């Protein structure tokens, strides 16, 4: 398997505060890798640092053999990285369809119509709401839209930041089912989650982050039965 992305000793500072400490992790092609950790551990910081927001203070982010840590966000996005960010960040005043079209910026409109149909098959709720303003949709629908928007760019690596955040358990289940379907197409996924149970069940490998440091790593199944992980993230049973 070839390595798609690699973090090498990455430090991130917010002023005097160090948010990431010597973080190293790898994502291989075709893998589902998850990063779990408590609120404020630095998970979203890590994902956003791929797009240079914030810039890392030392270390390297190697993507397909190139250090992208000092590149502009639009350069990174134009090279096959797509993110469904924390808080979804859909464009509130745009229709569902327009939001989806925003995903095609890196690859152009060539496949737009076909890909949009594919998204509507995967997320039938979005088809119903096609011409509706995105801000009027429920949280779960907005999350689906954010994932679909990311997929519209036909990414090589799909980055997901807490897709389960603030959603009802039944919706979370739906979303993870969809992620499973996406993964089965061979898509490489890097999933950042607080919902360790769902995330570890889906992932091939996982990393555990505590206070900006990687504390543990292993396969999804290993971490799922690890007593420390169970104690800290799975309610101890």
């Amino acid at each position, binding site marked *: 398997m070839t390595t798609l992305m690699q973090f090498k000793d990455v430090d991130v500072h917010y002023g005097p505060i160090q948010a990431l400490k010597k973080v190293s992790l790898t994502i291989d092609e075709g893998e589902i890798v998850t990063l779990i950790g408590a609120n404020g551990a630095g998970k979203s910081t890590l994902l956003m640092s791929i797009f240079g927001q914030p810039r890392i203070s030392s270390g390297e982010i190697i993507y397909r053999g190139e250090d992208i840590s000092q590149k502009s*966000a*639009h350069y990174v*996005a134009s090279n096959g990285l*797509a*993110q469904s960010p924390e808080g979804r960040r859909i464009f509130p005043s745009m229709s569902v369809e327009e939001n989806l079209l*925003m995903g095609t910026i890196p690859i152009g409109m060539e496949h737009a119509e076909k890909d949009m149909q594919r998204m509507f098959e995967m997320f039938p709720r979005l088809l119903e709401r096609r011409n509706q303003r995105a801000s009027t949709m429920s949280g779960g629908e907005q999350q689906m839209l954010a994932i679909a*928007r990311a997929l519209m760019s036909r990414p090589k690596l799909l980055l997901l930041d807490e897709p389960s955040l603030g959603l009802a358990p039944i919706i979370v289940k739906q979303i993870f089912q969809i992620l499973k379907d996406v993964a089965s197409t061979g898509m490489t996924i890097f999933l950042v989650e607080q919902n360790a149970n769902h995330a570890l069940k889906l992932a091939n490998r996982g990393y555990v982050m505590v206070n900006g440091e990687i504390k543990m790593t292993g396969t999804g199944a290993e971490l799922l039965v690890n007593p420390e992980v169970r104690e800290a993230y799975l309610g101890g049973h």
Partner: protein
Amino acid sequence: MDIVLQQLVNGLTLGSVYGLIAIGYTMVYGIIGMINFAHGDVYMVSSYITAIAIALISALLTFLGFESFLVVIIGTLFLTIVVTGAYGWVIERVAYRPLRNSSRLAVLISAIGMSLILQNYVQLSQGANQQGVPTMLTGALRFHVGDGFVQITYMKVFILIAAFAGMGILTYVIQKTKLGRMCRATQQDRKMASILGIDTDKIISTVFVIGATMAALAGVLITLDYGAFDFYIGFIIGIKAFTAAVLGGIGSLPGAMLGGLILGLSEALFAGLISSDYKDVFSFSLLVLILIIRPSGLLGKPEVEKV
């Protein structure tokens, strides 16, 4: 009756021009949250470019040995819009981009500085005296209403058509094209737009250029109609257009056009029916009133942060 109709026509033309300039304020505010106080002076610069373009093209036509109002006016429109658009691009590059991540106050001061620079640059290079262009389109339509009549000069007809065409094209671009979607995305969430692969700096530049081209269209139209201008005209018309943008709801594109029309119409009616000396007082009273009653403007959204 005839005077009301006459002032309605005058107000509509004036308002459509306010609307064109207001677009520049509202789009720039929408995308980077600042009032571009140099925008009125961009309009002023476009008046001078209009005069230079008319002179150049007329001279060229005389040299070639023929005369055509249409060629002059289309050539002038084209040249003025392109050159003024370039001014808009340079202004953003020089005065605002270096301050992208600094406080709002810094950008505001830079904008006022840019405004002073443009005024003084034009005064030094073109002289402080009032300049003028010859009247090129004469004649008028006359409609009899009761005992009196309403007169619409061909020039005013031309202004109305050109201004509404300009607004129509811009609305289409913003609502229906990929460039428009990229502008709206950058306006709604700049960080997310960049994550999706949009070069947001380029989009911000584009918005400044769009604002400048709309001001240029207004500059050509008013200069052709009114004939005279000096280096200081940007101030008052800039503030009027800013009023129009606030009236319609700053940040809202249809709001700027609507605000411009309402301001132009009400100002013309006030001038015609009550007092033309106090029409500016009236306009700014309207601004104060709007700010008290509905600070977000007619079509603007109140600022609610939704989590």
